[in-house]
């Protein structure tokens, strides 16, 4: 019988939640790396017992841990993220030049074709690649060397590269950076172009500028790489040409601010978001935690509320904290800043908490196991 393994990164360690295919009863292990911030934990799609965790702490810098037994035991791998030649400064919040400095790893993206290959998105924004399972890392400097690099400016969370979407052959890669935008490479990461046409951000002096958009997350269905869904700072967006052009699909959402977006495992036009009140009020509207689902690829949305708190709920759901398994019906998982991890085993129709009292959840990923 199939099972699932949910990998949860929190502000004070990592947790591994496991269940059988029913997804009703959960075993929780952890905290792994207790006391450390774990921005992201993700497993290899082709060697699922191989899992990486990005472990950091303001006092001690960045570590990357790898497990080869599904998260039971861990060993540190490489933690040297040295920028290659490229621009030495980006814009600071006040518009002055600021040195490009490594702060932390935000996102780890294992390859779908090679168990030793993975990418890391870091702050200050850069894309790194490891072809030896994380032992060593090299930057793909073409991204920062793209002509707009020195003008990139951080969002409130930092100048972070948080989304990495590589095709199976590794040629096309789409990444997203807050608050620079989306960039796409078609040559394995050697050269890049902004992929932001159609984005509009009213906080910018030029709202439809090529860069400067605070993209919170981008998701796609693996079988349809040209169709991308984006939760921007404000606006939910869709691209049908791999990111070159975008159109708004916020439609009838109660608010189009939010952080997460993801796609149904078997229905490429079924999309999920969690609307958040505003950029100054990082909690759900009316204190009611609602996932919204569109079965039409956007514009028309339905609230999913059964099992979720519908009063007095003021948590947030951060950008990497929503995941979808590939069982049928597919399951959804999201973590909150209040430490709950909610699970739906029926495509979002009903929800329950797998665990309620973890530290602030920074990321959630799920592995569907045979």
């Amino acid at each position: 019988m199939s099972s699932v393994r949910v990998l949860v990164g929190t502000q004070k360690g990592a947790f591994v939640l496991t269940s059988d295919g029913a997804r009703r009863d959960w075993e929780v292990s952890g905290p792994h790396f207790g006391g450390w911030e774990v921005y992201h934990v993700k497993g290899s799609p082709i060697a699922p017992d191989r899992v990486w965790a990005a472990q950091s702490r303001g006092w001690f810098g960045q570590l990357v841990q790898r497990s080869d037994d599904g998260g039971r035991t861990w060993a540190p791998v490489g933690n040297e993220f040295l920028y290659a030649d490229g621009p030495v400064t980006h814009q600071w919040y006040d518009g002055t030049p600021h040195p490009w400095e490594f702060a932390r790893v935000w996102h780890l993206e294992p390859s779908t074709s090679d168990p030793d290959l993975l990418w890391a998105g870091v702050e200050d924004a850069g894309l790194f690649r490891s072809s030896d399972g994380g032992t060593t890392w090299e930057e793909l400097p073409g991204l920062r060397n793209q002509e707009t690099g020195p003008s990139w400016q951080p969002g409130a969370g930092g100048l972070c590269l948080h989304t990495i979407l590589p095709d199976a052959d590794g040629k096309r890669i789409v990444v997203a950076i807050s608050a620079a935008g989306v960039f796409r490479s078609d040559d394995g990461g050697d050269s890049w172009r902004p992929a932001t046409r159609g984005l509009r951000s009213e906080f910018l002096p030029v709202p439809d500028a090529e860069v400067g958009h605070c993209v919170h997350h981008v998701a796609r269905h693996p079988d349809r790489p040209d169709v991308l869904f984006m939760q921007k700072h404000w606006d939910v967006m869709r691209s049908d040409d791999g990111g070159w052009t975008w159109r708004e699909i916020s439609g009838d959402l109660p608010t189009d601010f939010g952080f997460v977006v993801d796609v149904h495992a078997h229905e490429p036009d079924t999309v999920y978001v969690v609307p958040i009140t505003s950029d100054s009020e990082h909690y759900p509207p009316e204190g009611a935690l609602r996932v919204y689902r569109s079965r039409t690829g956007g514009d028309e949305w339905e609230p999913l509320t059964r099992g979720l708190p519908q009063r007095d709920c003021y948590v947030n759901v951060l950008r990497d904290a929503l995941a979808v398994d590939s069982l049928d019906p597919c399951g959804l998982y999201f973590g909150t800043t209040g430490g709950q991890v909610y699970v739906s085993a029926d495509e979002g129709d009903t929800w329950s908490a797998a665990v309620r009292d973890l530290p602030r959840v920074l990321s959630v990923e799920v592995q569907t196991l045979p």
Partner: protein
Amino acid sequence: MIRVVLPAQLRSLSGAGPEVELADGVAPTQRGVLDALEARYPVLRGTIRDPQTERRRPFLRFFAGQEDVSLAGPDAPLPDAVAAGTDPLVVVTAIAGG
């Protein structure tokens, strides 16, 4: 023999005990001590000093007895009491938590 006391977080990370005793022959400087410490516990590489710039991480300080030696250069001699093993070199973390 130079002795080093690590903060609790780095002890649990590395598996080191309450006090690390480095072998004779280690240069009695910050750089010498950290090189030897990282060679013995590779997981500590990058945690006390930046791996690229080798600058001490800003929320850490180095003490020899009552003396804060953090701002001495990486190749400045450590106090005699540390070099002789009478006092440990203590890695101290900034307090957090309000």
